[in-house]
């Protein structure tokens, strides 16, 4: 293993303690999710957002057009 990689990991651990959720299963799930979001989070965020908006518009029948208008007037 590369020495600079180890140094980097040591430095990270020095800044902040590694996350521990108190339960090994929860910690594993957290590490898996956060691991995916650490680099290029938009690969996941954009499709998730599209799916959420699609499901919400189907479930609650809210007008996506009205929300877009409200947001566009909101800046």
């Amino acid at each position, binding site marked *: 293993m590369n020495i600079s990689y180890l140094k980097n990991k040591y430095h990270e651990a020095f*800044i*902040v*303690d590694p*996350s*521990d*959720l108190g339960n090994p299963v929860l910690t594993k799930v*957290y590490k898996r999710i956060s691991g995916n*979001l650490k680099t290029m*989070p*938009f690969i996941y*965020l*954009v499709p*998730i*957002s*599209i799916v*959420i*908006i*699609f499901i919400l*518009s189907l479930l609650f029948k809210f*007008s*996506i*057009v009205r*929300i*877009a*208008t*409200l*947001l*566009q*007037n*909101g*800046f």
Partner: protein
Amino acid sequence: MVSKHSPKAFSSAVASLAIVLRRCILLILTPYKTMRKISTETDYTQLYWIGLFIFLYFFIIGFAKILTFLVLFLGTVGIMYAVGRGWKKVVKISNVLFTFSYGLLPTTIWFYLSLALFYLLPPPRTPSLEGKIFSALYVSFSLSLLFWKLILTYLAIRFSLKLGFYSTMFTLVLYTICILTISYFGFALGLSTVPFI
């Protein structure tokens, strides 16, 4: 260095201001007579005063927005610092300031995007197919930026306050509630619809 003509220029400017104020009242009382007199006016200083009043309005409106942002941002930094001290952590104010300043990136992108789209595709959106597709994309992208913002805020809290997962989440939830409450009052007072934070 003060010019020797300064006192004269100053008194002339004050006289012009007095005329402007007087005419404002006269325009209410006797508009016909006053406007006829105004039509023969040659004192350009009066135009500067009128311009200054108008500029002052836009300055105050802009200033109110800047002040809202400053209160929200500096309030955020202050609250986070206090929270960090509350958790008995050694917190540097510079760490909070830097992480939360960079945390404004999603907000800034969203506001610039909305500004550009406001002029390129002005609201209201139509319920046509194109309108629905654009609305879905715009709202989805806004939601993605909101998620990104939440991730950056989580990381800002975690790294600047050096907290564990539960403490960070607790602080994040409290912070979100605070921002939503302040936003509601900002919206009710007409200061901003979407807060710049």
